[in-house]
């Protein structure tokens, strides 16, 4: 079973410290982030690098990444038996048993689908296209795949449409989400009864808080408290505002944020309101843009790098030509593998040569920065200085992530932000990242047209011919 312990008496809408423990898994000190995966891996990070060079021991996976095969063909994950308390998904993707696995129907952030959910199905996007996933299939899948935590599906309304969602739509969202949660909890009970008291970890279900104002989901929240309390092990929040809608009797449950903060400032704000765990797309987005995150929490004292009149950027644009001969590390004093073994000049070279290793190293660094950041957040909360530190952070750093000056690996299909329901189907063939990158990865590229003769000469590749 999952246990979540809060340190000290927690106040409503205040930062809090917790420990999430599942038997046999690495405990998670919260606030923290969960590693975000694509097809079972953190993008660019092979499993050995993850183990040796990151502290990521918990992973978030979307079922849609594994079920492109349609009946009668069976997705391979269902061919692996559940044994010894280890999820077949972990076995399939070669993650060690101690990894804490959170399964959701969809990857994060999900690609918006052209068709809406129905009463019994979710609209999803697999590597071969959009389709619908019957809720019953998702529930069966979680029973077979036995993740440590499963996210009960939310009949999610895209953020853009949320404000204007009609009363009827919100009602539908709350009804469906409640029914799906009920079915999910029934499955959980069945699994538990099947297993008896063999001491295995059961499946822990996290229930959504709907991303609408409290009054509009009153009925759903009442059900959550009255019918499902005790069966629900945690909450999933899609919106920072939902932190204020959590019923008092569910305060002690761990909160997973699928709110997609765009930058550390937004992230800190959510922590200040009592968020516990996050899936953070901005980390990989920064990596793909060639930005090495460079912030720490609490921030350095003012006066060192400025007098407060100019704020410090949140990251280093590794593409920047200034880095070409700089043998300093991506972030001064950083102890990550990339910074200990390599320097800005190499990273700059790799990026401009479009070598895949650039993204590997920046991704390792960026996750390390986040590990340090959350460790800093936790000790700041423990010291009772979080609010102060947060304000200092806002004064010290720029609000937004740096504008990216260059293209990273090309945008993948699942990164497309579809404009909403009515849009024509976007064929997610851009999913095929390697093919996309094939050109840039060509073994022996001809010099780019931007290289002129003078450059070549300067580069030692011969001289301008005088004869």
């Amino acid at each position, binding site marked *: 079973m999952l246990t979540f312990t809060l340190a000290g008496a927690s106040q409503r809408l205040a930062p809090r410290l917790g420990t999430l423990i599942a038997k046999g898994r690495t405990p998670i000190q919260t606030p923290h982030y969960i590693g975000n995966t694509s097809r079972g891996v953190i993008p660019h990070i*092979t499993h050995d690098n993850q183990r040796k060079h990151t502290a990521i021991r918990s992973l978030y996976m979307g079922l849609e990444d*594994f079920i492109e095969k349609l009946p009668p063909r069976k997705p391979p994950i269902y061919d692996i038996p559940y044994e010894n308390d280890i999820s077949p998904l972990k076995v399939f993707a070669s993650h060690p048993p101690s990894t804490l696995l959170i399964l959701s129907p969809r990857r994060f952030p999900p690609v918006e689908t052209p068709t809406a959910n129905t009463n019994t199905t979710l609209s999803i996007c697999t590597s071969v296209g959009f389709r619908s996933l019957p809720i019953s299939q998702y529930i069966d899948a979680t029973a077979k795949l036995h993740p440590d935590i499963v996210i009960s599906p939310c009949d999610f309304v895209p953020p853009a449409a949320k404000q204007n969602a009609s009363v009827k739509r919100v009602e539908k969202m709350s009804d469906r989400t409640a029914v799906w949660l009920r079915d999910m909890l029934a499955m959980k009970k069945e699994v538990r009864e099947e297993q008896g008291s063999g001491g295995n970890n059961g499946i822990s279900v996290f229930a959504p808080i709907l991303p609408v104002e409290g009054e509009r989901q009153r009925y759903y929240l009442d059900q959550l408290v009255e019918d499902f309390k005790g069966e629900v092990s945690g909450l999933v929040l899609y919106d920072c505002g939902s932190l204020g809608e959590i019923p008092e009797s569910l305060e002690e449950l761990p909160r997973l944020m699928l709110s997609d903060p765009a930058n550390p400032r937004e992230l800190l704000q959510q922590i200040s309101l009592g968020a516990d765990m996050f899936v953070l797309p901005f980390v990989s987005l920064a990596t793909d843009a060639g930005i090495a995150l460079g912030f720490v929490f609490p921030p350095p004292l003012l006066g060192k790098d400025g007098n407060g009149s100019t704020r410090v950027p949140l990251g280093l644009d590794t593409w920047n030509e200034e880095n070409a001969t700089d043998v300093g590390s991506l972030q001064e004093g950083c102890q990550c593998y990339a910074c200990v073994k390599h320097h800005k000049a190499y990273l700059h070279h790799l990026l401009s040569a479009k070598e895949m*290793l650039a993204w590997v190293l920046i991704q390792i660094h960026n996750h390390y920065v986040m590990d340090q950041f959350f460790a800093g957040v936790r000790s700041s909360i423990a010291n009772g200085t979080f609010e102060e530190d947060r304000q200092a952070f806002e004064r010290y750093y720029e609000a937004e992530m740096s504008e990216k000056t260059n293209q990273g690996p090309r945008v993948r299909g699942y990164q497309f932000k579809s404009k909403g329901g009515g849009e024509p189907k976007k064929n997610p063939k851009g999913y*095929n*990242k390697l093919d996309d990158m094939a050109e840039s990865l060509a073994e022996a590229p001809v010099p780019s047209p931007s290289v002129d003769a003078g450059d070549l000469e300067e580069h030692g590749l011969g001289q301008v011919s005088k004869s």
Partner: protein
Amino acid sequence: MAAEQPPHQMPRPMLSALRFDLLAKCSTTKARAAILHLPHGPVPLPIFMPVATQASLKGITPEQLADQNCKLCLNNTYHLGLKPGQAVLDKIGGAHKLQGWEGNILTDSGGFQMVSLLKLAKVTEEGVRFLSPHDGTPMLLTPEHSISLQNSIGSDIIMQLDDVIATTSPDDERMTEAMRRSVRWLDRCIEAHKKPESQNLFCIIQGGLNLKLRRECCGEMVKRDTPGIAIGGLSGGEEKDAYCKVVNECTGLLPERKPRYVMGVGYPEDLVVSIALGADMFDCVWPTRTARFGNAIVPSGTLNLRNAVYANDFTSIDKDCKCTTCRSQSEGGLGITRAYLHHIVAKETVGAHLLTMHNVFYQLDLMRRAREAILEDRYPDFVKEFFERLYPGGAPEWAKEALGSVGVVVP
């Protein structure tokens, strides 16, 4: 400089920054096992060198490369000359420091890539003339430029600039000219080489498929006494039996106590045969390039993991493989299955990285096993077993013939 130079004097004697310890010779074939002591550590021979074209091996870290037992990898001078360029290399202090690689590096001269990649490149006595890809300005790469750039790169083994033309070129006169010019260019490289105490200059034997030219070239090159010797011009699609005859002819004329490097060769069967013919070092982009397309090298050939037959195959790429990817988790590896590779190849870069590690390991391990067999004087048996697994229906004719010429009969 004039278009043709008169015969000239021998260049200054060469220093050497390596030691070649010959450990064993096969009693049947011409195979040798040795240790090559280079400035960045010893390298067991025979060896395969993976190609890290732009100072990076297809997304795997130098640490992961070392984990696959790599001690010597290749960088391409032409690419490093473009990016990051000589000025940056000088400032950073060379390619080892650039890429954080503690092992050895070999660089080519840059000439081959220039001639093969740039249209309108033309070779004259001075060097390779080409038009700037940007504005069409006429440019020139001389032996002196190539060596200067390789001195800035700081590679442990550097290659002379040679006059490369297709081996299959039927023009004997041009072939003779190219071979003799390569000898003259070696002399210029030796004169231009500023760091012989830390970088080993290898000459390159040219002469196409013409054995008489190859013999003449061997004679001239050997006189120059470079620390190592390469056999060049053989990666251009010539017939394999002609290739084998050239390698066999050259190794017969080369001094025993120097490393012999056959450039641009890397299919497993080519390595096994070339070792039998007396070659020690090889490089090829194929193992890493093919990984990117989802191919894994195994004793029976290659597996394309994009193929749907692997979707539900929960075994490792090769059950005997001890690479990081294949080794089980209980052995400290990752225990990656074919099914999972099928799931991510061509979709996540991690798929390519995992296959790259496997393929590099496979090639290096093939060399390790060959070396062990030579040390135990059972190389002929090793060769037979290797070909039986790869070609259960019988080895190709060229291999039978080449191996037959050194006393090994494969079915």
